[in-house]
Structure formats: C-alpha cells, structure tokens
C-alpha cells in the first residue's frame, strides 16, 4: 500500500511538473500569435513600415518561445503510456480521438504556416503572409481546443458507454464529447487567459525598453496595443470564468466547495473574498472552517447559480447527499456512502464478469455485465474506503483560487491604468515606477495562469475521471524508483529549456534594443 501511494504521489508530481512547465510556454504561444497577427494586420492595412518592424520584433520572441516550448507536451503522452496505463486503456478511444485530431489538423496547420510566417517576408505577397500569420494563430488555438476537449471529458465524462469486454469507454456520441459544455468554457477561458498573459509579456518588455529609453515609439505602440489586448482578454477571461464556475457547480460541486473551504452550505451563500482556513478542520467535525474571513454576501450563490437565493452545498452536504430545493425543502440523494456501496458493487460485478469469461459462461457474463452497468455511474467510488477520501486538498485549492483571482484583479487594474496613461497622462509613460510596474507584472501573470490550473486539477482530486476512476486506480504497475529517476531527468531538462529560453530572449531583446526596431532589416 505504501509503495502504491509512493508511486501515485511521484507519478502525480511528475505529471504536475511536466504539465506546469508545458503551460509556461503554451499560453504565451497562444496569445502572442494573435498579437503578432494583429500587428501585421495594422502593417498591411496602413502600409506603415514601422509596424512591420514591430511585428518582426515580437514575431521573433514568439519564435523563441515556440522553439523552446514545442513538443514539451509530448512527454505527457509518454507518461500516459508508462505511468498511467490503466487510465490510458480505460479512456483510450475517447481521449485518443481529440488528441489525434489535434496532431493531424491543428499541429500540421500550425507547423506549415509558421514556416511561411518566418521565412516568407518579401517572398510572398503581404496578404498571403498575413494569411499565414493568422492561420498560425488559429492553428495554435485549435491545438488547445482538442487538448482541452480531452481534459474536459475527464472532468465531465459524457458521450461514451463502458464496455467490460474491451475494458474501455467507447465513444458513442462525438458531438457530446466535442461540445461538452465544460470543454467550451475551458477552451475559451484558457485561450483568453493566454491573451492576458501575452499582453502582460508585451507590456513588460515594452516597459523595459521605455526604462532603457530605447525604441520609445515602438515600445509605446506595443504597450498601448498590449493594454487593449489584455483588457479584452481579461474581460473575456472573467466572462468565461463565470461560465466555468457555473459548470463546476453543476458537475463538480466538491471542487467548488474546496475552492471556497465551504463545509456546510446555505441558501444565499456568501463568497470568501479574503480568508485563512482552519488547518485542523475535517469533514464532519464541528470546528470552524475559517480562522478569519471577509466575505461577500450572496456571492457564491450568484457565482455558482446566478441566483442570490440559491443553495450551494458544502463538503458535508455533498457527502451526505443533502441539498435544498428552490422551494426551501431539504432533500437527500446519492450520499457518498451509497456511492461507495454502488462502486464496490460494480467492482464485484466486474470480478464475476472476469471469472465467467474465464469459464466461458456467457450467461453469467451477461448477468455480471448488467450489474456493472447498473452501478457504473459510481464505479470509481468502489476504490474509496471512506467518504473523506473523495475530498480534494482544500488548502491548496482554496489558496490557489484566491491567488488566481487576486492576480487577475491586479492585472485588470494594470490594463485600465496603462490605457488611461496612454491616452490621458502620457507624461507618466516616462516614469520609472510605471516601467517597473510593467516589468514586475510578468511573473505575476504566470503565477496567475499556473494557479488557475492548480485549482482545476488539484480541485478535481481524487479523480482522474470524475466519479469513474480515482488517481490511485489509474496508475500502472511501475516502481517508485523509476518514476523518481525520470522525475529528476525532466526537472533538469525542462529547467534547462526554460533557462535557454529566458537567456535567448533576454539577449535578443538587449541586442535589438540597441537598434531601431521600426526599421527592419530587408
């Protein structure tokens, strides 16, 4: 058991490390590709060569990030096959289809047009080049779409039927999988947050140029465009974040409860604005959940249900299967004790199916299969010994959510401030404090972005597939030592990649700052 937990924990740590490093590169690629396309559109529309220079400057930074980040996600697929083989087999067809589409359509589209984008200046017409730049940006976003469709299925498994003979979930409705409401919100939330991240990157680098008093005109143009792009991205991120909150309340109420540190829900539930969790609080005890909090009345009911007087269940309510209807009646359904019993019945039926298959008894196989299917909705609960095991790490989820929201709020104010300064108080654009505000915002936006994924992925624990497969059942029969070894190999490899990217970017920015960005080389 201890070795199993060791393997699970190290495999989770390895997956988290890989995914987090991958996500350092991806949102910048998503957002910067669109920004570069907008800059080039301005150049093509106005014919102003200065914009061509500005476009080429940011396009090169896009290229550095693209080169360092490309294929880092493939390692996640290696891990699926080796560390998470039970999971990979269990979901194979459903997870495989979106990833295959991503590889065939989006990746090749992106790879084809990125070459025209970098090598095509002065070799193809302006409009053809601009089309290639936009198609690269669209290809990048389409890649994200299919990855997020696959991820969303894990959070809200739909459009499939389980087949005990194949031991796989077989897709029976592609539309349901592709247009899963969780996927749509997740896709737009991730893409627009990428816009915000790229905007802050452009603002930060432009601020550095302004601080160095280098390429002031190009830096001001970039900063203004970045502020608009960031503001639009942030508004859309807030909008899609609201949609995500409604979806989480609907399909993953336990995640929402963990995000809020909420144990006992109420009608007209408040939202914790700022708070400190009681680290000793456990489900079912009578200790206070919070040591300190400043709450927004009705906030969580509005966020989760768009209804100030709705009921939002807490962790204890969800475990008990308790909810309060719109009429104010308390009703109970599917407590976690019942779900665990159903899950264990499904596993027991699967065992009978396996024995009947070995004996060649088709009648017994059919009867066992019917029992598996009757309880399959809660199959994953059969691996839990207690309801408390179904509660995600509350502290990490709660604080990550607040880091994301606070950092997002700060960035929204930053965009508004910079637009105000750009249009109304241009003298402030020469102030060092403003430059440094832009520069220090670069790490803030990356922390914000990573915190969002921590909320999404830690908050759904213990499930790799919501209600169907807990993390510990997904793991392969591998040794802790082998996972530890590859964990450190990845840590070194990815850190080297990141250091290379930052170093090449800094050298390029420093070198280019000594030239006139607005006069590109022919």
């Amino acid at each position, binding site marked *: 058991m201890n070795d199993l937990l060791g393997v699970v924990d190290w495999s989770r740590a390895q997956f988290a490390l890989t995914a987090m490093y991958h996500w350092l590169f991806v949102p910048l690629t998503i957002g910067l590709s669109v920004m570069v396309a907008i800059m080039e559109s301005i150049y093509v529309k106005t014919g102003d060569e200065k914009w061509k220079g500005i476009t080429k400057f940011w396009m*090169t930074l896009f*290229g*550095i990030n693209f*080169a*360092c980040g*490309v*294929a880092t996600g*493939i*390692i996640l697929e*290696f*891990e699926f*096959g*080796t560390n998470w*083989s*039970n999971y*990979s*087999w*269990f979901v194979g067809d459903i997870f495989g289809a979106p990833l295959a589409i991503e590889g065939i359509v989006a990746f090749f589209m992106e790879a084809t047009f990125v*070459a025209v984008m*970098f*090598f*095509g200046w002065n*070799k193809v017409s302006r409009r053809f080049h601009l089309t290639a730049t936009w198609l690269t940006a669209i290809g990048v976003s389409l890649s994200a779409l299919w990855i997020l469709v696959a991820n969303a299925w894990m959070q809200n498994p739909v459009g499939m039927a389980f087949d*005990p*003979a*194949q*031991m*796989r979930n077989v897709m029976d409705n592609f539309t349901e999988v592709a247009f899963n409401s969780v996927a749509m919100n997740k896709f737009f939330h991730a893409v627009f947050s990428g816009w915000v991240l790229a905007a802050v990157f452009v603002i930060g680098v432009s601020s550095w140029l302004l601080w160095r008093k280098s390429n002031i005109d190009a830096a001001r143009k970039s900063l203004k465009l970045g502020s608009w792009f960031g503001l639009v991205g942030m508004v859309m991120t807030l909008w899609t974040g609201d949609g995500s909150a409604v979806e989480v309340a609907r399909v993953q109420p336990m995640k929402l409860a963990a995000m809020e540190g909420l144990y006992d829900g109420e009608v007209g539930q408040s939202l914790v604005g700022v708070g400190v969790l009681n680290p000793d609080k456990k489900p079912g005890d009578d200790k206070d959940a919070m040591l300190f909090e400043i709450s927004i009345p009705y906030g969580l009911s509005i966020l989760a249900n768009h209804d100030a007087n709705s009921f939002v269940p807490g962790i204890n309510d969800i475990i008990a299967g308790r909810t309060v209807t719109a009429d104010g009646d308390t009703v109970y359904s599917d407590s976690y004790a019942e779900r665990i019993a159903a899950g264990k019945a499904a*596993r027991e039926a*699967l*065992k009978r*199916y*396996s024995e009947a298959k070995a004996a060649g008894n088709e009648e017994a196989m059919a009867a066992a299969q019917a029992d598996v299917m009757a309880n399959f909705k809660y199959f994953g609960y059969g*691996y839990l010994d207690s309801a408390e095991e179904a509660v995600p790490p509350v502290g990490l989820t709660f604080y990550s959510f607040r880091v994301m929201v606070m950092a997002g709020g700060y960035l929204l104010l930053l965009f508004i401030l910079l637009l105000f300064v750009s249009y109304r108080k241009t003298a402030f654009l020469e102030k060092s404090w403003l430059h440094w505000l832009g520069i220090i915002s670069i790490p803030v936006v990356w922390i914000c972005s990573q915190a969002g994924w921590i909320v999404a992925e830690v908050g759904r624990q213990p499930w790799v597939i919501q209600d169907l497969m807990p993390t*510990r*059942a997904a793991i*392969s*029969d*591998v040794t802790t030592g*082998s996972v530890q*070894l*590859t964990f450190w*190999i990845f840590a070194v*490899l990815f850190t080297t*990649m990141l250091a*290379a990217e930052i170093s*090449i970017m800094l050298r*390029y920015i420093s070198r280019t700052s000594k030239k006139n960005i607005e006069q590109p080389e022919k």
Partner: protein
Amino acid sequence: MFYVEGFRNMTIGRSLWAIILIKLFIMFAVIKLFFFPNKLSSDYDSDEQRADAVRTELIYK
C-alpha cells in the same frame, strides 16, 4: 527552395533549431526509448490480453 533559403538566412533561428533538435533527440532517442515504454503494448500481444490485464488491475487494485 523557399525553406532552404529561409534556413540559410537564419541568425537567431540557428540556435533555436539546435535547441529543438537536441530536445527531440533527448526526448525520443533517450527518454522514450529507455524510460517510457508503453507498458500495455510492450507487455501484451493482443488487445484482448491488454483488456484482461487492465480488468485484473482494476478488480484487485
């Protein structure tokens, strides 16, 4: 020709391509080959055997 000229005229791109190629080599020729076999593909010959293996794992885990 389009690509050849593009590669020939690269400046910073040369370092980037070096990074990409080294990275892909490490990933596929070292990490994938020696550390990340596809367990079910390498341990079993048919899909039926793989399904049986996963079923056993999920029953007794």
